[in-house]
């Protein structure tokens, strides 16, 4: 504590927080130092991104069919898979609702995702909420729908890991809109103060529903905001999956050493906010067209084709393979019966409490009456 001193800012940190790290540009050209990643990783990343896009399309279709309550498209943001790929299974992920690729990288199958989306009998979240995904067996915590709530959780869980002497870390995803919430503020601040092993990934897709970034914050960059909590950060071209992957490796390494790290993933939401949204009200087709050029799959494909990782037609084959897979999975998931009628009395408390036992009695009585009187409620 000093009343006299001045405080120096590390210019390198400032540079990373305000520059833009990229390796493959929008035309698939290498513009940064290409990291030494194996062919397999590159193919994996491609496959995950394609799977995410295919699944996205299917969820949109199922929503239009009235089978899925709501879906938040992730088209354009598939390079998030690069951030998750280097994690260990024991690490914990707190995803956002727009993270199909994340769920897949963590090991969730299309089948499991569909059971969830359709909240059928096999829904592990027992019909609790829409558009959220996760599972204990993948160490992926289903996200709360209130934007940003998961951020302090990820910090607290990381503290617990450190406290327990584990060498695991947590990673948490959220949007640019989430940075305005108290949860973001508290989460970043606690991470800075307690030096928790947490990697923050802000998927800055330029929009929070209809609110553009400049209406969300006048921060020079979101990565700069992170510095103001004493959390190191980087601003990355979030449509460049290789840059995301490389960044994540460094971030995860730093977190595992017990220092938080913040990734601003600069990307763009190509689709609507959710299936309930109508973006034509607030942004131009022309903007979206312009941004399509930057989208992550296009450039990875270009790069891989030009560098001989993909032969002609192979991309389409892969795409078709996953498409067929999801089609079959969707058919099966749709055929499964619904959850039991009294499912919502489960998992409110660990122990039985009389209040709910009494209410259950009334509930079963009401089911009886429905039958008796031939009432259709649902």
């Amino acid at each position: 504590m000093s009343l006299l001193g001045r405080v120096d800012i590390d210019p390198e940190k400032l540079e990373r927080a305000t520059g833009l790290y990229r390796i493959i540009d929008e035309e698939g050209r290498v513009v940064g130092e290409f990291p030494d990643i194996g062919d397999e990783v590159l193919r994996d990343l491609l496959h995950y991104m394609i799977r995410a896009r295919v699944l996205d399309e299917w969820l949109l279709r199922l929503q239009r069919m009235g089978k899925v309550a709501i879906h938040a498209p992730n088209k354009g943001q598939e390079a998030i898979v690069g951030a998750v790929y280097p994690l260990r299974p024991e690490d914990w992920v707190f995803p956002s609702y727009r993270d199909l690729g994340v769920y897949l990288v963590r090991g969730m199958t299309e089948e499991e995702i569909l059971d969830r989306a359709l909240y059928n009998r096999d829904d592990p979240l027992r019909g609790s909420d829409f558009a959220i995904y996760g599972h204990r067996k993948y160490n992926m915590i289903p996200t709360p729908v209130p934007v940003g709530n998961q951020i302090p959780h990820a910090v607290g869980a990381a503290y617990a890991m450190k406290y327990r002497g584990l060498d695991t870390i947590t990673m948490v995803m959220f949007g640019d809109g989430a940075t305005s919430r108290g949860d973001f503020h508290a989460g970043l601040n606690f991470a800075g103060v307690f030096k928790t092993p947490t990697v923050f990934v802000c998927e800055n897709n330029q929009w929070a529903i209809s609110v553009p970034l400049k209406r969300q914050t006048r921060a020079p960059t979101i990565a700069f905001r992170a510095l103001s909590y004493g959390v190191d950060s980087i601003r990355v071209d979030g449509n460049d999956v290789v840059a995301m992957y490389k960044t994540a490796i460094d971030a995860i390494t730093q977190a595992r050493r017990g220092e938080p790290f913040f990734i601003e993933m600069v990307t763009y939401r190509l689709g609507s906010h959710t299936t309930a949204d109508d973006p034509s009200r607030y942004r131009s087709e022309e903007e979206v067209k312009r941004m399509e050029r930057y989208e992550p799959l296009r450039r990875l494909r270009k790069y891989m084709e030009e560098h001989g990782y993909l032969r002609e037609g192979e991309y389409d084959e892969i795409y078709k393979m996953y498409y067929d897979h999801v089609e079959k999975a969707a058919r099966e998931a749709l055929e499964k019966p619904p959850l039991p009628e009294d499912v919502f009395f489960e998992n409110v408390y660990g122990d039985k409490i009389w209040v709910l036992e009494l209410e259950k009695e009334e509930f079963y009585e009401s089911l009886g009456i429905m039958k008796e009187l031939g009432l259709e409620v649902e």
Partner: protein
Amino acid sequence: MPVMNMVQALNTALREEMERDDSVVVLGEDVGRRGGVFLVTEGLIDIFGEERVIDTPLTELGIVGFAIGMALNGLRPVAEIQFIDFVYEAFDQIVSNAAKIRFRTGGMYNVPLVIRSPCCGGIKGGMHHSQSPESYFIHTAGLYTVMPSGPYDAKGLLKSSIRLDDPVIFLEPKSIYRTVKEEVPEEDYTIELGKAKKVLEGGDVTVVTWGAMVHMVKSAAGLLKDKLGAEIEVIDLRTLFPFDKDMIVESLEKTGRLVVVHEAPKTLGLGAEIAAFIAEHHPELLYGPIIRVTGYDTPFPLAHEKLYMPNIARLYLAVKKVLEY
């Protein structure tokens, strides 16, 4: 008279109040170009500009805290919370400030603020797009809480709320935003806060309810008459705090039987206060038990929401019980 749905009626009320009084401003997430996710503020930005129809950053605490500051300095902000389920970040600002500034400052400052928000279930919204959290506000001294059940009331009540010098939590049952249509006068009119509306006359059982449940209850009247021979008298509370005790008491003088229906979870839902009020001040009016048909004491589920919510079967059971006692 034009026929409107509730979204149109609310939109009209906002527009008219903004035309009447420069100090009325609208703010919230996506209320501008987007017109709100339910389009209640649609078109206002074109008429009044973005200084008066303000898209805010994504923080309910910020929306309400900022709006309180506006209200202190002479404006009459109407703040939209995109879904009432997201209001909790703002709870401190509502409970510690909006509700208490008049008291804290010895009456030197007051907060003419309306917080309006879609509420309640019925659209497969799951845990965080379906809640009915009115109890939190009703328990907080210093606030008014209002919930209309149709377009006519929506317009009149919103206007009264905007003109009031105290904060109002204005809850809009989203499931009936577009399903209920009514004639709505083009003229200016207001509806006094604190007054309920009798929506069905009947001599056997008083059913007190509000919001979308008004329609569920009304739709059950025929069945209840047929199967139980009971004529229900239905009171739409409209203002939840301070609620219209007089209309309830008057009806009970006739029926002697009370059922309260609301979507909020039972424990300390407003039904509890209504029952306790009668049990405290008018026990002599009752023949038997006061039955509450309510949301269960669980989070609001995505699966089987229609079974979770008060429904005709559950109302039937309740009416049967008060009759049989």
